[in-house]
């Protein structure tokens, strides 16, 4: 080999050494995901997180992001924070990671630090070449709430004002205006918001307080009366909404989510596979899913007509200390099928003494009918219709609710609560005379009925 060639080769080897050394060092020094030492409450998590961690360690930003979100879904804020930091290091313009990082930091009590990170997140949203993101109003909302956590009302107000057009932020602004003695400004904000979200519960609740502060009693009453039929809720904290999608990615929750999915798809084989996996994973661990699994086993046994097995499962549930309506109802159903109708009835009545469930009223109405007990049948039919009516009413379906209440009153016209709610719905439908008749009927039946009395005394004429 010529000297020149040799020198070139030496130079090439030197370059290779440098490059390979750099690669090896980069590999040896790569960040390692932080994981908890153990997952004592879920037997599946250790293995699943080991896989996610390995992928992240050997992968890129997307793998770290997936790991971070999965850790967050298990409530491991500190561990998730480290994963999101790595995403931001690899991909500084990643808005989702910046938001997640800020969230982890502020949820663990580092509120001011969290706000600084939300600001960085918003800068990333506004920066060039970032994928479209809806995170900005949420980041700004959380900044406002965090200022309140720090006791800085002025800074919070400024943050909510910056978030104009985002209903939850404008609602927070109205709250601040009310709390700081500016009811007229608060009322103006609320009026504007109610045009956009007419049946928002929080808006009506706050408006009732604002109008009370303004000394307008008739309007206060009308705003307060909107409470029951306001089916829309305005978010005041987005923490659970944000985390929820990540909660059932791993572990037992993923198994349960898979079961629900198979059920929704009516895939019997898939349901059975998911069921077997859940039963095997939960075993007899001291975790809340133990009762859920036993109840599931009881329900399946009932569907399969294995009534004795149902009783075995309800006994096991009881042995865990559970005295729930669900357990009593399940045992009642098995007893009924075994021909022990007296025992079933007693169990259902115990369950109803705890919780007024429409379906149990239906079962008892049918049972009373079989026994020739017309009074009992009608009482339960009235209660069943009443429960169904309330569900319609609270979904703001007033005519349907009223129809069911009228049916309930036909079965039992001596129940003052039925008449009260008839009056309430008639009031909302603008039929004042019919409302008053119903409220008076409720008061006749129950003279101590304060809510009925209040309606008659306080409603606007």
């Amino acid at each position: 080999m010529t000297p020149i060639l040799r020198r070139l080769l030496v130079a090439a080897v030197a370059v290779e050494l440098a490059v390979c050394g750099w690669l090896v060092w980069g590999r040896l020094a790569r960040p390692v995901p932080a994981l908890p030492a153990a997952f004592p409450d879920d037997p599946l998590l250790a293995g699943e997180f080991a896989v996610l961690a390995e992928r992240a360690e050997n992968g890129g930003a997307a793998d770290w992001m997936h790991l971070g979100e999965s850790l967050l879904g298990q409530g491991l804020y500190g561990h998730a924070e480290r994963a999101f930091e790595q995403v931001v290091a690899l991909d500084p313009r990643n808005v989702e990671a910046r938001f997640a990082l800020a969230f982890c930091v502020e949820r663990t009590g580092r509120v001011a630090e969290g706000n600084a990170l939300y600001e960085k997140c918003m800068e990333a949203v506004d920066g060039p070449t970032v994928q479209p993101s809806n995170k900005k109003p949420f980041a700004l909302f959380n900044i406002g709430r965090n200022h309140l956590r720090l006791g800085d009302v002025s800074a919070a107000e400024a943050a909510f004002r910056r978030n104009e057009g985002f209903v939850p932020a404008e609602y927070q602004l109205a709250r601040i205006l009310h709390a700081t003695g500016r009811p007229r400004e608060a009322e103006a904000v609320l009026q504007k918001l109610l045009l956009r979200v007419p049946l928002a519960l929080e808006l009506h609740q706050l408006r009732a307080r604002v109008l009370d502060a303004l000394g307008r009693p008739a309007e206060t009453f009308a705003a307060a009366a909107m409470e029951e039929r306001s089916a829309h809720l305005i978010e005041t904290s987005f923490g659970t909404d944000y985390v929820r999608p990540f909660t059932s990615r791993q572990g037992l929750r993923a198994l349960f989510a898979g079961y629900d999915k198979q059920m929704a798809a009516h895939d019997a084989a898939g349901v059975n596979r998911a069921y077997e996996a859940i039963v095997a994973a939960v075993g007899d661990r001291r975790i809340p899913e133990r009762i859920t699994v036993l109840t599931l086993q009881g329900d399946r046994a009932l569907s399969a007509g294995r009534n004795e097995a149902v009783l075995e499962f309800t006994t096991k549930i009881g042995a865990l200390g559970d005295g729930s309506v669900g357990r009593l109802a399940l045992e009642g159903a098995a007893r009924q099928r075994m021909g022990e109708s007296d025992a079933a009835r007693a169990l259902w009545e115990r369950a109803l003494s705890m919780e007024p469930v429409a379906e149990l009223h239906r079962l008892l109405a049918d049972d009373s009918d079989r026994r020739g007990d017309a009074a009992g049948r009608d009482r339960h039919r009235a209660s069943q219709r009443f429960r169904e009516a309330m569900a319609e009413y609270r979904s703001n379906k007033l005519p349907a609710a009223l129809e069911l209440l009228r049916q309930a009153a036909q079965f039992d016209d001596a129940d003052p609560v039925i008449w009260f709610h008839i009056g309430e719905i008639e009031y909302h439908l603008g039929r004042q005379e019919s409302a008053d008749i119903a409220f008076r009927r409720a008061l006749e039946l129950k003279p101590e009925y304060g809510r009925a009395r209040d309606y008659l005394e306080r409603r606007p004429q």
Partner: protein
Amino acid sequence: MPLAARDVGLLLLAAGLPLATWLSLPHLPSVRRPAPVFSAGNSFPPSVLPFERQPLPLAHGDAGLPVVTNVQVMDLDGDGTLEVLACDALGNRIVRFDRGSDGSWRETTLVRDVSVPAHATVVDIDGDGDRDLVASVLGDIFPDDGVVGRVELFERDGDAYTRHVLLDDVRRVADVQPGDFDGDGDVDLAVSVFGYSRGEVLWLENRGDRVFADHHLLGGPGSIHVPVADYDGDGDPDIATIMSQDDEELWGFENLGGGKFARKMLWRSPNYDLGSAGLVAADLDQDGDVDLVLPVGDNLEDFDAFPQPYHGCLWFENVGKWTFQEHRIATFGGTYAATVDDLDGDGDRDIALVSMSNDWSNPANGSIIWLENDGRQSFRPWQIAADPIHLVTVASGDLDRDGRPDLVAGSLNLRRPFQRVGGVTVWRNAGGKERGP
């Protein structure tokens, strides 16, 4: 021209180095350690007062996960000894624990089929000389805006209790407290309808024969407790409450006589995440009026609660004319309940606090602590225990009749981790000065 050995080596190195790197790279372990993870929460010096832990035998407690919403210490049967009264929200029961002469405990179910009892108020409501139970029925332990609450009276007749529904068609009821609010000589009731998105505060006027008329005092969700006391010192019982669901507001209801009340907002926090978790009426500074003690640390709005720097305990000093001055007296992550007693027997009023959501990943973080009062309402925290965890209720009383107040607490095992599981636990106070008669 033949290649020299070193040339061959050089060539092999040039070819082999990238190849070896490429092949070995995926198998090289990282030499770095995972970055340390942030943790928080609070631990304190071990208590200077010795406390001996004694778990009480809640039925099925070894197999299930107890959900205890309330504990109280009281003489339920009037025999001069104190018992523990507890609300078991998993079993939907109200239970009583009696201490035997050998120090062992026995559990008795007083009433069953109470749907998630939040509190049991012991009061002779019908004036027949025995102690009835009034249950605050939540109806659902989880967030629920349904009309699932009740006020139920369990009228005592010998050893049996007969159920009467006093208030129905309301949302989740968290507390009921007695008082003769209209001055007619019978027992009326103040009611916290916690609800969820909707709720209210009521008082129920006793019209005799277990008939109660409902009177609306305040609308809004999140009323936790309604301690009744003569806050303004005018001789009649008033009502206070803490609203906590999103607003954090302390309210007073001044009894004007004749069943009329004037409501007063006593305090509000701009921090909607503060997490007020209860309200205790007590004359903490022993100046003759009734103060209010507010444990703060409920952050169940998150799937996984984490202790916050503003959690702990606030004292609202009654300075007269319905003015209450705020003092922060402790910072303790996840504080959920407080009880006031002279734990060290030095004549002033100390406080015990329990935590539902300290940072349980650190086994040193406390679940029950006490605050030693230096006599000038400056408090020093001492840790009693870090096990069991998830404590949401605490009460005090001399259970072993040794002259020292003991502590009893209850665990609400709904959230992870399901470790260090407890039900109802007594901490026997084995130190401090004995109180005088």
